[in-house]
């Protein structure tokens, strides 16, 4: 178990400000992330080290003047509870630890700042009092003072720069000893580019539950990215999200996420092993009795596919045979998440189709 790993997960779905519409994803996002963080083959965190700050969707109407929770102070208390000494005399450094800061809800980006950053509106935010949690600031603070060896910031929220709001930079006291800057590594994932919109939607592969697209995609990346490796690097997550974003969004496009990987080393995420993605093939020129090869990005043949009347027979390189039903000329083959090419020899010549596994249908 990752004893020194901690997480604060914030999900806000209801807001006092009527300009911030209700969301359906944040609480489910937090649940999904928490499940992964507590999983032995995932984050491996001690449940005592995971703090969830979420909207109480069952709460009753507020009294006049009462602040709708969660509020900024809830997060600040949780953060200081993790990084501060109990007597507030100094900070605790966990040189073997990792801090996850996860936010889901409505957010924004400060208008002047050109470096990547975002802030999450808290529930009591209003037109005049735009309370928010400046996620980037807290992640950067933890990094700058090396409070953890690794910091993972995930902000599944909009980075709308048109709202003239300023992220809060609370006057956190600096640690008493300095000189650790540059040691810690920070991975930042933002659901949208600056000025862009994050999206939540029903995800068919998650039982049609509504989730933030970034949260869904991040967890997919942990499963599928870098198929040759037992764990996943930041670089692989970034590449996976960039290449697969269109496929993840499907017919309804969304602003792409922005991923900032550490410049001073890698952060590795555990997993039980890579899993394949599903690739749909649509038969057009190829007929019953024909076959084709699937070649991966290293130009190795990964599978041979034989087309029969009602099923496709798949023979994997290195062993393993399986069949998949063909319905209306369409069948699915599990493949490693990489660029591939289908090569078929037809009477008219060689038919080649390059594709991103798990992406658009491949017509053969």
């Amino acid at each position, binding site marked *: 178990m990752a004893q020194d790993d901690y997480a604060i997960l914030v999900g806000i779905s209801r807001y*006092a400000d009527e300009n911030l519409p209700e969301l359906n994803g944040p609480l489910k996002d937090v649940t999904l992330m928490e499940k992964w963080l507590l999983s032995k083959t995932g984050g491996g965190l001690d449940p005592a080290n995971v703090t969830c700050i979420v909207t109480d969707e069952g709460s009753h109407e507020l009294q*006049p*003047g*009462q*602040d709708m929770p969660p509020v*900024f*102070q809830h997060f600040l208390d949780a953060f200081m509870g993790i990084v501060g000494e109990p007597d507030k005399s100094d900070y605790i450094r966990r040189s073997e630890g990792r801090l996850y800061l996860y936010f889901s809800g409505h957010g924004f980006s*400060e*208008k*002047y700042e*050109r*470096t*990547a950053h975002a802030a999450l509106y808290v529930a009591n935010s*209003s*037109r*005049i*009092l*735009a*309370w928010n949690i400046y996620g980037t600031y807290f992640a950067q603070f933890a990094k700058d003072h090396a409070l953890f060896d690794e910091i993972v910031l995930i902000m599944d929220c909009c980075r709308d*720069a*048109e709202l*003239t*709001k*300023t*992220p*809060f*930079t*609370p*006057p956190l*006291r*600096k640690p008493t000893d300095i000189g650790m800057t540059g040691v810690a590594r920070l991975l930042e994932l933002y659901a949208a*580019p*600056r*000025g862009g919109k994050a999206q939540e939607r029903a995800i068919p592969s998650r039982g049609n539950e509504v989730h933030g697209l970034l949260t869904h995609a991040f967890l997919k990346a942990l499963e599928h*990215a*870098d198929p*040759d490796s037992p764990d996943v690097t930041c*670089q*692989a997550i*970034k*590449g*996976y999200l*960039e*290449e697969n974003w269109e496929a993840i969004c499907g017919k309804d496009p969304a602003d792409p996420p922005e991923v900032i990987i550490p410049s001073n080393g890698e952060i590795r995420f555990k997993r039980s092993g890579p899993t394949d993605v599903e690739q749909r093939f649509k038969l057009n020129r190829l007929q019953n009795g024909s076959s084709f090869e699937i*070649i*991966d*990005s*290293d*130009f*190795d043949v990964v599978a041979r596919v034989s087309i029969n009347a009602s099923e496709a027979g798949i023979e994997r390189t290195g062993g393993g045979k399986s069949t998949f039903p063909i319905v209306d000329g369409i069948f699915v083959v599990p493949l490693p998440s*990489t*660029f*591939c*090419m289908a090569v078929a020899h037809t009477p008219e010549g060689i038919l*080649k189709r*390059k*594709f*991103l596994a798990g992406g658009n249908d491949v017509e053969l």
Partner: protein
Amino acid sequence: MSNSKTTVTVRIDDRQGELEIVDGSFRVINRGYGMLKADLKPGIYKARARAGNAQNEELFEVEPNAHPFEVPMDTLFFESPIPLNGTSTTHEYHQDALMTATKEAPHDAGLGTGASVLLSVRDPSDASFRQAGEPSNVQDDYRLSFKGFRLTDPNGHLLLDCDAKALHKPDAGFALLNLALQPGRYALIHRSANNTETAMPIMAVPGWQTQVFIHVDFPNDLEAPGIPNLENRSVMMAPLGEHFQADDQYFRLTEIARYALRHGRATINRQELELLLQEKFQNPIYGLFGAHLLMLEDDPNRYLLDHVTDNLAGLIGDHFPDVMALRYALAKRPNEPFEIPAEGLSFPPLLQASWNLIAENEGFYPKGSFMREIAGLLKFGGVWLNWQPVRKTALIALEEADMRAANDTLVKSALRRTMVQKISAFAGTMLDKLKITYTAKHDGRTFEDLEDMIADINDEDDASRSLELLIGLAGKIPWEAVFRRIKSEAVEAGLINHLTDLQKSLLPTLQLIGNQLSAGEKFSLDDLQQLRKGLNIPLPVLRESLEDLWKKLLQSSIAKVIEKIADEDKS
């Protein structure tokens, strides 16, 4: 399998756009601009081309022992307010109109000669055709969408109603104005349908035409007037008398650079950017974008930045605000002396990025200067600097509003009476007007203390005075209670209309600092500088905004709230 490498050339048809080659692990293994050569081992790769907001991708395979080959990429058609060739939002009839307008002598409206400004407001969609068949109210709304522009001097004095002088062709979806101007500083003001005003800087430079291109966004079913997209505008500078050329490659390149700067990423890689900037470029805006893109680098090429800045100074003058901001930033890096003129920066820079370079130094914002006046009034403007126009009558309007409010029950309050008297005395110094006769106590702290403290603060712009004021406001007002009451009494909206964007962001900051002070935490000068940096304004502006905020709070219904809290505490 052979691992011999093959040279692959990826080329964008017009050589304009960022290029990347991505391998099967989704890693970017090569980058370039326009054309990219790479030696690749056998495998499947992706070529990715980006320009503006457009992106093309192409998967390609490198067969074992393949001969060198090329991966051609189509020209990227991105969106632009300028009807340039190779953009997705151009129309020949808009190009023709601009060519005609720039071939003619600029309109003489009695504003002098020696420079000019071109204003192009256009609808790149098909709404101009659709509106023609709609009822008259829809057509009227459509026509209105191109209006609301006027030219003023920096102080807001009207020089020209652009709407009256521009060529309006609603059926073709554009309005154009080519205007002769005396070189100098101007503001282009736009008033939206809901009366929100935005000021944009115009520097009219001798021998140059400043060109402002704005596109109008329309709702799909034209149920409301369109909105000129000021944040996404393009500004160009062209030698006076030069005609608009739809195939101007530098204009297109400048647009790509604008997108890059907007998204804070150097999409043009360093080597290519340096090559482009080393040329004797003729488009000052391209030079400005290029310089700021260079500054995004971790280790900017100082020699090239000097070269670009010199080139810019040669084109548009050393006193052009953005050039001066660059000079200041360059001098600061090796800590060289830089002499800021006594009058500070005479006019705001065009680019927000230029403003960011100087915001830390209050020398650019001397008391009474225009820069000081607008520093607390900035508005979001994409890469451009925008501000809420300075209206000398604003305070008077506020006073009148409060006088009207005096008819309600608030007037019965002694506090209110005092305030109304004070409001009517708007003429003296700001701090004098802040004095109130308020004696209520809260948590043992008196508002008189605050009054005294504010009154004690003199006009020196030093950091400790700003800190004192901030701590005073944060610590001595029970913000949490005040804001709870404001929410419950639904008086929030009345106050918000009078606050600047900066002040809106300061309110919760004050509460937060107040909470921390109550918890025994300190708020130091370092913290103040951090706050200033985040707000992107010089300290004196922060101080003045706080003073002004306090004044507005007193004038608004919030005073009643404070009074009630105090009464409750007493009882």
